[in-house]
């Protein structure tokens, strides 16, 4: 056991200390932040001063309201009506991003009243066009006399591709018009707002269990994707760790000191801890970042705590199953390049698991669903889908975990056997029959 720990420690410390690990750990969150914040910032960022808007108010009574709304800096999306309220998290992420950038130019509007003063509207507009040409103005809004009835207004700007300003102006005008309409109908604006507060519908499954809903479902795919990415990223590490002693011929000393099973297990655990360390740091960075970006209150996902436990457990199981595949492959080959090619087909099984889960969502208690969630290479995803949709009996979940665990141990055992025999026959890559022979022989 202590020898096993010595191997774990060596694998871990040697890798965590490398420059590569430190750089990747630091760069990861930076890149992540870069890909999420920077595009939003770029879109939202306005070089130069505030947006200068002129308002031509033909109604004679709307200027105050519109100007007020424009200066208020309220979120653009609130009243647009073009944003479905039940967008999935992916979409709402981008929504957050837009809002984020919207905040950036809160209050950065300069509004100017252009009274007609009995001039012809065309003359006034011509003046405004000239001012836009001369870059004294960024755009103007025309509020026609029948605005309240017909609800049509005009917004001209130099840059029509600037969606943010466009949306923002449209939102402000809509709110102003609604307010004015309500006022004219003698309805209290406040009570309308209260009456139209969004409704929170709680979907409840049979048996009174609160449904985990869509969010959990997306998380399942998230976990699947995470396993996939992690395995692709760190499988190479496992491969490298297993091959390292082959290249340096250290194995002979190792084998004269420790049995091959704890050795292989130690390598696997050591490298996996490296992966989990890095992922942990990234997850933490991500949480801090999203809390900062969205405000802690808005990431309330309403997921039961038990769900997170399942996510964690099945993620670990998935990761270890596929990592051991890399260990088995590593024990058969002599270079990491060869190994990567050999391991890829197996890793693609994970993707098949994702495809299967589409079927399982619809019939989570079918026999296909059952067997798919027992097959260790699919289970990390398929069992999670079942848990989220219609939680299967506990014994099934435990059985699936048991099979997964047995698979991991079995694969490590297999890897250690192949490794031990293959090691002693230095050199060439083994063929499958040879490998089979080794397994039986040693």
């Amino acid at each position, binding site marked *: 056991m*202590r020898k096993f720990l010595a191997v774990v420690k060596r694998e871990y410390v040697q890798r965590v200390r490398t420059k590569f690990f430190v750089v990747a750990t630091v760069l990861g969150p930076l890149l992540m932040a870069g890909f999420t914040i920077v595009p939003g910032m770029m879109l939202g960022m306005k070089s130069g001063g505030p947006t200068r808007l002129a308002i031509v108010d033909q109604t004679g009574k709307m200027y105050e309201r519109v100007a007020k709304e424009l200066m208020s800096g309220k979120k653009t999306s609130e009243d647009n009506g073009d944003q479905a309220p039940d967008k999935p998290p992916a979409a709402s992420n981008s929504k957050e991003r837009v809002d984020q950038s919207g905040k950036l130019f809160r209050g950065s509007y300069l509004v100017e009243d252009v009274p007609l003063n009995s001039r012809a509207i065309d003359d006034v507009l011509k003046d405004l066009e000239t001012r836009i040409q001369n870059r004294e103005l960024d755009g103007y809004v025309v509020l026609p006399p029948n605005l309240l009835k017909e609800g049509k207004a005009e917004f001209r700007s130099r840059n029509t591709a600037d969606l943010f300003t466009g949306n923002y102006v449209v939102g402000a005008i809509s709110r102003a018009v609604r307010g004015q309409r309500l006022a004219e109908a003698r309805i209290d604006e406040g009570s309308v707002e209260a009456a139209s507060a969004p409704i929170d519908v709680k979907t409840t499954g049979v048996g009174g269990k609160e449904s985990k809903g869509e969010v959990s479902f997306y998380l399942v795919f998230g976990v699947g994707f995470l396993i996939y990415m992690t395995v692709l990223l760190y499988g190479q590490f496992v491969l490298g760790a297993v091959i390292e002693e082959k290249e340096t011929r250290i194995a002979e000393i190792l084998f004269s000191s420790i049995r091959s099973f704890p050795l292989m297990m130690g390598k696997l655990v050591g490298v996996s801890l490296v992966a989990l360390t890095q992922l942990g740091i990234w997850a933490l960075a991500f949480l801090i970042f999203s809390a900062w970006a969205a405000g802690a209150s808005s990431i309330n996902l309403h997921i039961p705590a038990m769900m997170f436990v399942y996510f964690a457990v099945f993620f670990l199981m998935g990761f270890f199953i596929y990592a051991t595949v890399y260990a088995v492959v590593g024990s058969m080959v002599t270079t990491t390049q060869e190994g990567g090619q050999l391991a890829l087909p197996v890793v693609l099984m994970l993707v098949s698991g994702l495809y299967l889960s589409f079927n399982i969502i619809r019939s989570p208690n079918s026999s296909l669903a059952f067997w798919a969630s027992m097959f260790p290479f699919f289970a990390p995803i398929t069992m999670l889908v079942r848990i989220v949709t219609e939680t299967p009996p506990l014994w099934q979940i435990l059985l699936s975990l048991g099979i997964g665990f047995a698979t991991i141990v079995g694969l490590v055992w297999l890897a250690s056997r192949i490794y031990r025999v293959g090691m002693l026959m230095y050199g060439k890559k083994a063929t499958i029959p040879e490998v089979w022979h080794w397994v039986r022989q040693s």
Partner: protein
Amino acid sequence: MEELKPTLVLDHVSKSFGDFTAVSDLSLQVRPSRVFGLIGPNGAGKTTTIRMIVNITAPDSGRVELFGQTMSTALQDRIGYLPEERGLYKRMKIGEQLRFFAELKSLRGAEAEKRIDAWLKKLDLFNWKEKRTKELSKGMQQKVQFITAVIHDPDLVILDEPFSGLDPVNVELMRDTILEQKAAGKTIILSTHQMEIAEKLCDDVCMINRSHKVLDGKLREIRRSFSRNAVALQFQGGDGLLNDPALVANIRQHGDDTEVLLVPGANPQELLRRLVAANVAVTKFELVEPSLHDIFIEKVREVA
């Protein structure tokens, strides 16, 4: 000394890989506090034999018994092994590396640290403790590797070609270190194809060739039994003196030396007496013991 139990016993051990027989029906005994030479040409089966001793591979048949017990993983900690194929982690520092290998032999903590420092100092490597393997010369790496074999103070030290790649100064250092280990009561198995080295260091030898044991026993006794009653001579004059078939069987010229092979049972003193009586100026008169090399060649020919 003789009544002590052998450290290691191989009892009719065989091992083959597919069609290839690496070791065939090998039996031998290694006695404590002695240097045991496992000698034979490359490919004779030395390394396979050693691997069975250190429990890397199991024999197909036969028994390996160490310290009076059947070989098991628990006994591995009492063996130190310097394999022929050297290997150290390239990017690890020497100190860390030794600590890791010590831990694999169940030695850890302050005691490990103390011994690592002592050994590094002894082998002139202390200044390299914080350096990485790749910064060291071949010879230095070899010495580090040797430390990994003895750091845990094993009762049995197995050294596979320990001198290859060392310069003369380090060969000397290594030899002294091995003899110190022997003096400290360790049993040492020395595997080599270099007969001259085995000749100088070993108390007992086992010769193997093509997977078969050719010969084993105490080196001194082997040499005596192979003594061909030869004398190396350097002299002037005395022409025709050696042409007596009753005394001399053969004469060979080795550079300045004349090697005289006496007939079996003849007394070398008789030759010396005749030389002196004939007033020959004798500058060298030496009874020649056969070299291991010669013995080996003779035995191999005999078997073939």
